[in-house]
């Protein structure tokens, strides 16, 4: 069901998911979950108040000017008549009176929404730990059972329905975690663990973005939240729990050896010798929709392009161009394509 309910005192409309999200994937004028609804309502509320205030004030200024314009001096220094020397104070009392009521109402509404969205109404189904790195996201699915903890990167799958808890950690500098259609921003700050939560009512792909300036590739630090029906999510989750099982096919086996030698000190693939933690975990790379933190679609051509010229795709990132022969490159790509 690709529709979303917008709860707002001003607007009660059904907005199709696809068009709004497709035209402006990071907009937050429409929300798609229990945390987003009250915020969307408040956003539209203060936005409409603001537009009305601008219109009223502009009309008053224009009216005041054109009501009875004075006469300009013929020459500098000539004495001009003075008009009504007193009065006008009523404007201030009435204007400030009305403004104060609106402001007070906004404060109350704000407090209600803060209380409403501060923590989820029901127990979160899942806790996901996100660590901000320059310029990607390390994602760890937590569980009381250590065998059910796994690591991924840049793409977060959640089930629709229940609230999901997030623990946010600053890995190096400050980043900010933002998935506008589902939740406002929370910073990831070194030395502290922040918490946030979100909930998706509608299955879909929700774009996210780092919004705290974090250095040279801040512009290209995206993420994707994939909200799936509980059944689809369960399938994905169980797949992620397993280690990938590359075939022993000649080229793939050679690719794995090359990958471990050239890439394994930064990247990890579970169950292999590649166990680096400096870059994104690539265990189930082929199950992701994007690479390079949302920068490129995950297709073979873009993957090859990114690996062969990381500094061209994202100038300044920490990944250096690997020293690979054409054959080694082909082998590694063949290996990566088996990681699903």
């Amino acid at each position, binding site marked *: 069901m690709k529709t979303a309910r917008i709860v707002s005192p001003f607007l009660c409309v059904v907005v199709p998911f696809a068009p709004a999200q497709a*035209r402006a994937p*990071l907009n937050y004028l429409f929300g798609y979950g229990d945390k987003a609804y009250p915020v969307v309502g408040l*956003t539209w509320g203060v936005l409409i108040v603001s537009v009305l205030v601008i219109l009223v004030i502009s009309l008053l200024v224009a009216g*005041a000017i054109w009501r009875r314009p004075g006469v300009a001096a013929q020459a500098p*220094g000539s004495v*001009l008549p003075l008009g009504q020397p007193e009065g006008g104070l009523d404007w201030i009392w009435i204007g400030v009176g009305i403004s104060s009521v609106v402001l007070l109402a906004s*404060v109350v509404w704000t407090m209600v929404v803060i209380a409403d969205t501060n923590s989820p109404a029901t127990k979160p189904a899942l806790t996901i730990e996100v660590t901000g790195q320059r310029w990607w996201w390390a994602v760890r699915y937590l569980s009381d059972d250590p065998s059910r903890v796994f690591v991924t990167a840049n793409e977060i799958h959640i089930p629709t329905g229940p609230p999901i808890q997030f623990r946010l950690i600053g890995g190096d500098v400050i980043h900010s975690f933002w998935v506008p259609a589902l939740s406002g921003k929370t910073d990831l*700050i070194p030395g502290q663990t922040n918490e946030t939560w979100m909930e998706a009512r509608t299955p879909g792909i929700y774009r996210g973005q780092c919004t705290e300036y974090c250095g040279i590739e801040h512009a290209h630090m995206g993420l994707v939240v994939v909200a799936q029906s509980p059944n689809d999510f369960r399938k994905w989750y169980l797949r992620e729990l397993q280690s990938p099982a590359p075939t022993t096919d000649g080229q793939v086996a050679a690719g794995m050896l090359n990958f471990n030698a050239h890439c394994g000190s930064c990247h990890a693939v579970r169950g292999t010798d590649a166990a680096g933690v400096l870059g994104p975990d690539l265990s189930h790379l082929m199950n992701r929709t994007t690479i390079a933190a949302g920068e490129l679609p995950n297709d073979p051509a873009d993957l090859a392009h990114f690996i062969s010229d990381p500094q061209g795709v994202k100038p300044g990132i920490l990944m250096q161009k690997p020293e690979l022969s054409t054959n080694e490159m082909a082998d590694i790509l063949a290996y990566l394509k088996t990681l699903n």
Partner: protein
Amino acid sequence: MSTIADYERAPTVAGEGAHPALAEKLGRVWEAKPGIAGWLSTVDHKDIGIRYIITAFAFLIAGGVEALIFRLQLAGPNLHLLTPEQYDQLFTVHGMTMIFLYAGPVLSGFSNYLWPLLLGARDMALPRLNALSYWIYLCAGIFLYAAFAFGFGPNVGWFNYVPLAARAYNNGPNIDFYSLGMIILGISTTVGAINFIVTFLRLRAPGMSINRVPILVWGTLTASAANIFAIPAVSLAFFLLWMDRNLGTHFFDVPTGGSALLWQHLFWMFGHPWVYAIVLPAMGMVSDGLPVFCRRPLVGYTVVALATVATMVLGFGVWVHHMFATGLPSVSLSFFSAASLIIAVPSAVGVFAWIATIWTGRPILTTAFLFFASFIVLFTIGGVSGYMTGSVPVDLQLTDTYFIVAHIHYVLIGINVFPVVGATYFWFPKFTGKMMDERLGRWNFWTMFIGFNLGFFPMHISGLLGMPRRVYTFADGMGWDWLNFITTLGSFVFAAGVLLFIINVMVSYRRGRTAGDNPWDAPTLEWATTSPPPPYNFVVIPTVASRHPLWEGRLGKSDSQERSTVSTGLVLDHGRETVGTTPLDAQPNIILKMPKDSYAPVILALTLTAIFTGLVLHLWWLAIAGALASGLDIIGWLWPEVALGETREPANG
């Protein structure tokens, strides 16, 4: 002929007849030396004020060109005119320039020029400190821009968050230059603020009780008081950061127990009050200038003055609204959210006072009036976008998007640049004795107004559509393409408007119509003296009986019973003198001996800059030499002088 008996004497009173002889005598006493010597040593507040304004406008142009360059990069998706590193330096230096080197100093310039004239005094209370404040500002600006010229401009945003600004992530000297430059500039702002406060307390003309000072004076006074409390926070923050980076301390170093959030608190405890400090004086200019063209006094003088002070007081309680997303407890978020919304109440006072003044007046549509009146609308737009960000849940969406970029520009351009340009049209005749061209002025106004709104209004929409700030490029398919194109287009139109303004200033300076003393038939004291004013401002010290000395007798029922006198007043001609009055009621109680011109301020500015240059380049000998030279200079500066009553006259006097 000096010393104690002299400044406790009862000065004589003289009228119009004595003016020619007095003027000739005062001219000899007050005029700066001709040539470069006088240029370097002058302490005349008018010279200093004009220098402030011109320097600030030079920085405005520099910051504007930087913005135009990166607007080209953002004109469409995936453009690569600039490397990410170049873009990062440009947007950081643009912010630093506009916020620190333009917006604050330009208002200091106007206030410096205007205060003694508005207050009926002959100079600022501490003229040499005033000169020092300017020279340090100039040196700080050159210091920061020299780094930029060599490719070492600050590159992590004007807000300079750690750990990105720490040595571990920023190895070059960029942030060291920024840190020390900001500390130097802080000295300038602080001594300037002290000067305004002392001048307000002691140099108002006899009779100018605090309920009779122009609103501009309230604005600058409030801003100055705020700066005294706000600047230490940021200077401390930058000093701690410099020590972290250079001496191995750990104030902000998380792995060794420092705190990353400490920086944000220190920075915004300064940063938010600073925003008010760079708009309140500009709002004061409108409160004083607008009524002149409406041919009536400002509606609600008292409430507007009180609202100015209230804004500043509340302004110290809202800094956390820059940090809503940092994971603070929801109770403290709620408090700061409420404060950030309620601070709109005193702003509403101003808006309705200005509208009422126009509504009940007979507005004359001069260029200055157009700038002042349009400011009300721009102020409202910047105000309501601020109101939206004050609400925590909404701000968690808006923050760090282009919506905030729109907001800050409506605040800084709408509430600072528009009033400043209007104020230039208004006071240029006083500064130069020439009128600015009104026909060119119309072109100037409409180009700036249309360009500004064309450029910056769409940023609200790109923000609502999720465009993050501080990105050097953006992908297509995000819904931002045409909005960014319009923004770039508008920014160039706006720049053309600013260019027309500068052309108008230059042309009018050469060929403008002669203005006379009071071209607008305005009510306050600066219009009582010649245009441009003589070095001593007033031949005799005026006595003030109302808020509108030059409109007395024409205000009907609200006229004061007593009358101000501007051509008859105290004669103070025993060297450089002005009158000191009591802080509240402005009863004259002392004759103040004013210092002569001096090289000490310019030398101290240079030696202080030498200290900081030594520190940033790790040339320790230069830092030590600079410190010693500064010490010697201060000794020379403070050496007691008989003429200033700082030491008893010799026994044989």
